Every structure is written in C-alpha cells, then in structure tokens.
C-alpha cells in the first residue's frame, strides 16, 4: 500500500515520464530502445530487417559497415531492393573499388540503370579512402558502395565524420576478420550466404539494444526467378554437395560433348 510520502515522490517522476513522451522524448535516445527517426532512413526492402534497424531502414548521414567472409558474394542481394529507390531522383550509384567488374546487364535486373552507375577504381587503398571522402563531402551521389578491405579504425572515424553531411546511404564492405576491431560506423553487420536462397545476417552494432539472434532473409536475385523451378525456389535449404547435379545431364553424357565438339569435327573434316 502506498503512503502519502510515496505518492508525492512519484508525482514528479510521472511528470518527467509524460515529458519524455513528448518532443523531448523524440530527441532523446535511451540505450535500451531502438533509436528513433531523428535522421532519415531508406527502407531496406526486407520487413524483418527494417524492424530491427534503427529508424526503420538503412541510415542516411552515417556509414553502414557490412562485413563479409569474402568480397563480392551477396552485396546486391542484400542491398538491391534499397538501391533503386535511393537512386530514383536520377542521382548515381558510385561503386568504389569493387572486387569484380560490375556487370551492367545483371545490375539492370535490380533496377539500376547503366547511366546511373559509376565505377571508380582507385589504384591504392589511400586513394580509395580519399575518393569516398570526396564523394561523401560533395553529397552528389544517390548511394555509395565502397570496398575498403584495408581501412583502419581512425580512417573509418574520419569517413563517419564526413558522412554526417551526406544524405545518401553509404555502405562500406570489409572482411569478416575486422569484426573484433572497434569502428565508428553506427551500424555494423555481418553478412553470409546460406544454403538455399537465404542470407544470414548478424547485427554486431546498432543504435539500440544488442540483437543476439541472427536474422535469416530470403533473397533470390530477380534475374534468376524465371530460370528456377518451383521446387528449387522452395524455402527449405537445399541439400548440399550432392554427388550428381539435379537437373543437368551428367557432363560426361555424349550429347553435351557432341554439341561442344561440333566445330572440332568440322575442322578435322577439312583437314582430312
């Protein structure tokens, strides 16, 4: 049972609580909660991911750091749905130091028009950092993707400071091995492909409480959907390492080889 003294003590507390519901609360971020929408965010296209990202999507005015076991594995499967809306204003996507040649016909399937893609290939890691810094400062790009395998924590801190003025989402890809290093990026996640069509995602750092459980996102590249049968597209993981291919006739079979060997026979015929 409450005494009078107790209720008196509680009155200012409840007043403070009601104050926190108002405009003050929106500006305040408590560590136990997900940060609110003080900065704008770009929806990731995955409802499950939006639900755990602060602000409900990929943050603007901040670096998003994505760690992968190997570069060039599943960047667009994760980011593709978010990139097309970010480029809707006609601004370009800058690919800084990508691990492989960007393939325009394949990227077009993600809704990325060829004239909106720019490939920047700096020769050294320092030049790559400089390029990203200049791109962030100019705020002229619609989205930025940079592969910085050798960036050091203090360099990332500087980039994060530059990103505060950039409206575009900026993704920095680094190897999995740096997960233990500190990083100034407010959002860090670990990305791995899984068997089947899923991506496994672990949020290492976000503006909010730690999220222990990894996230599984189903991400089929849109270019592949017409190619795949319903059975293949089913959600359960495919059995790995089957000794024989599922639908392909065995490579040793005569007709494949015959098809491949046609001009050779022709040449032989000419020779004889």
């Amino acid at each position, binding site marked *: 049972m409450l005494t009078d003294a107790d209720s008196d003590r509680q009155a200012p507390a409840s007043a403070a609580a009601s104050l926190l519901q108002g405009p003050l609360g929106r500006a305040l971020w408590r560590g136990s909660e997900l940060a609110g929408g003080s900065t704008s965010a770009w929806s990731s296209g995955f409802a499950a991911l939006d639900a755990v990202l602060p602000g409900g999507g990929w943050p603007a005015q901040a670096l998003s750091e994505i760690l992968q076991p190997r570069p060039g594995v599943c960047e*667009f499967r994760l980011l593709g749905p978010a990139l097309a809306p970010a480029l809707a204003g006609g601004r370009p996507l800058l690919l800084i130091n990508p691990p*492989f040649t960007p*393939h325009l016909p394949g990227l077009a399937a993600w809704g990325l028009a060829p004239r909106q893609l720019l490939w*920047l290939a700096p*020769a050294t890691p320092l030049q790559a950092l400089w390029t990203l810094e200049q791109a962030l400062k100019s705020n002229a790009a619609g989205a930025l993707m940079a592969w910085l395998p050798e960036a050091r924590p203090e360099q990332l801190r500087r980039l994060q400071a530059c990103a505060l003025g950039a409206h575009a989402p900026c993704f920095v890809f680094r190897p999995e091995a740096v997960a233990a290093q500190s990083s100034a990026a407010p959002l860090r996640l670990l990305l791995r492909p899984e068997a089947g069509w899923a991506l496994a995602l672990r949020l290492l750092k976000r503006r909010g409480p730690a999220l222990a459980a990894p996230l599984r996102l189903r991400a089929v590249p849109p*270019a592949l959907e017409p190619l*795949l049968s319903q059975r293949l597209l089913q959600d359960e993981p495919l059995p790995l390492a089957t000794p024989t291919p599922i639908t392909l006739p065995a490579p040793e079979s005569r007709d494949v080889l015959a098809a491949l060997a046609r001009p050779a026979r022709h040449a032989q015929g000419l020779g004889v």
Partner: protein
Amino acid sequence: MSSPHWLALLATPRDSGSEPASPAQAAEQEAALRALGWWALQFTPRVARLEEAVVLEVSASLRLFGGAQRLHRRLWREARALGLSGMAWAPTSLGALALARAGQHEGLARPLDELLDALPLACLSAAQTHRAMLLRLGCRRLGQLRALPRRALGRRFGDGLLLALDRAYGHSAEAHVWLQLPERFEARLELPFRIEHAPALLHYAESLLRQLCGWLAARQAGVKRLTLAWQHDAMRGRDVSRDGALQLGTAEPTRELRHLSRLLGEHLARLELAAPVGELSLRADEIMLKPEQAASLLPSSPDEATEALPQLLERLSVRLGPAQVRAGQLLEDHRMELMQRWQPWPGPARPAAARPALYPQPAWLLEPPLRLDAPRSQPRYLGQPLQLLSRPQRVEGGWWAGQAGGPGLVQRDYVLAQSAQAGLLWIFQQRLSGEESAWFLHGVFA
C-alpha cells in the same frame, strides 16, 4: 533621369599596412582590380578604374537587380572571392571612393556635404599630396579645406585640388574612361620569386583565375578549356625547354572560382616542374554561353549537393587518372564479355539502346573467367564441390570475330551453381580440345 548612384570597390591586399606596398603586393592588387572591373561589367557598362579602386554607376540597373540594397548585398557577397575589401556608395565617384577609404559605406542617406566634410584629408588623393602644407595651415578635414577661400586655394595649390574637391562634392562633372572588355582572355603574371614546386604555383594562378572568372561573368559565359602556361627562368638546365603548359578541361562550362581552383590544384599536385618558374600566364581556349540561373526561392534542402556531380568526377579523374573513373554502356551481344563497355567518364553522350539479355545475368563479372578444378567433371571452387542448380544455358556466337580482339568464338554451357562460401555463381563448361572440357567461373549473382 534618376540621380546618379556610384559605387566604389576597393581591393587592398590583406597583409598591407600603412607602409608602401611591395611590388608583389602592387601586382596582386592590380590583378584583383582588373578582375573586379571585368566582373562589375555584368551589372552596368559604366565601369571605370579610379586610382586604387573600381567605380561603377548603377542607377540604371537598380530595378533589374532588385533595388539598391539587394544589389549592394550581392556585390559584397560575390566579390569577396575576387579580392573586394571595401565598398561605399555615393552620388559621385570621388565621394564614394573617399567614403570607402574611410571605411564607411552609406553615402546616400545623408547629404554628401555633411559626410565628406567630416573625412580626413587622406581620403582625397589631391589633398593628400599637399598634406604637409595643409596640416601646417591647420587643415585636418575636408570640411576645413573647403572653408578656405577658393581663389587663394587655387593660387596656392593649383587647379587640380579645386577640381577634385568640386568633383567629389558634385559641383563639377566627372569624366571617366569606361572599361572595355577584351575579346579574348589572356593574362600573365610575373612571380615575385622563383617557384620550384608546382603546388606552390596555385596561389598565383588563383589570382589569374580570379581575373578569368570576372571576365567570364561579364561575358555571361563559362569556360570549357583553358591553358595555364609558365616560363622557366634563365637558371634552367640546358636540356629544359623555355616554357611549359598545362591544359585543363571541364565537362560543363563553368565560371566558379572554387571549382576551377580545386581542379587546377589537383593538376598541379601531380606536376613535376623541370626548372624554377618565373612567370605564369592563363588563357581561355574555349568558352560557352552560360546564362545565369535563377536562385531558388526555397531554402536549401538537406540533400542538396554541396558540389555538383560533374565537378566531383572531374576532380576524381584528375587525381585517380581518367581511366579509373568509368561510366558503362550496354551493347548487344550474347557473349557476356561483350555485353557492356566501361569507358572513361563521361562516356558517349547518347548511348545506343540495347535490348535486354535473354539469359539471366550476374551482378559481378570475372575478367578473365577463372578456371575451376573439376575432378571427375565435378567443378569445385574454394576447395568445395559446387552444387549445380539449373539446366545448362547454351551461349554460342562470335564465329565472325577473329581471335585477336575479345573472346572470339564462344561455345559455352552456362549453369547456375551454389557454393557454401561464395553464394550463387554463374559457371560455364567449355570444350578445350578433343574430348577434354573445362569449367570456368564467370560471374556472381551477388
């Protein structure tokens, strides 16, 4: 006719005190004045040089530029980059100049006589030459000078002082030689000392760029190509030529000093001078009409670019090399290597439309394709066997192309494969010779 509205623009070098200016400072001031004069021609044709200032008469242009106050603000805001250090307005040009020298601005709100009478003698050059004598007479201000008997003043100091006083106070008409804009821009600058490191040239090249921007503003044009040339001094080696030059190009015509100066800075940072440089010159090779854009009424939004994309990419191409900033174009071909072409930015102005590919296309392309281990015809990647997910897609073509350029004849069966570590891969099988065939990794559905 409306009453005259004279503006005086001063350009004093930043670090000059009361002591006489060094030749270098004088040259810098001269360059700033030339830049200011040309730049001011965009507001009125009545622009003239008057001693160490540029004066312009804007009564006919006030309405066009939104009134006196807005024009003053705009001049002050935009000309600061060109070296403007002081500004005043008054009904006469000498009066405006005297006010500007005294550090005042407003010469129209109150009667000019009152304002000028309070100024020290140094504000009028004609009085300044006789300063010592006038001080002995007890004259310290222009008002005291004007109160002296005219005839005695004329006999003692000559007609020049009387005429200057009359002109400053508006009792006598002023005559000016109006500035003419040269047809072509070419400016040179002798350096105060020899410079051996190219980046150090930027400071002096900037004063030339200022003149260029003023000239472009008067012509309502932007520059597309310009040349910075330099002459080495006599101390150069025997095998070094007398001069050198640097060509700059911009993707879009511009007259923005900041952009041109950053672009030039990037070029100079990569330049090795063969010998010390004694003289610089700047020439505009190609200019294009660039009408002024109306400023937006709305406040700038947070996502507004602080630097336009072409300007950013120009700077990047200079620092990284033109081949490292690439724009892509789709081509019509069935062979994956030839479906696209990456070229130095900005690439072709009108890329040809290409029909979409018939087969699924990966997001990354490996160039050249990576040969995979395939023991017992089971392709492996990163030490793990790959799982093949789709039927083979036959791509065959290029019989018309020789082996010299590109892949030439291609006969491949593409298969979608999955790897536990590397995700979804696009691999193909190709016959090598006879019965032997090999697997290659060609793309990643990343």
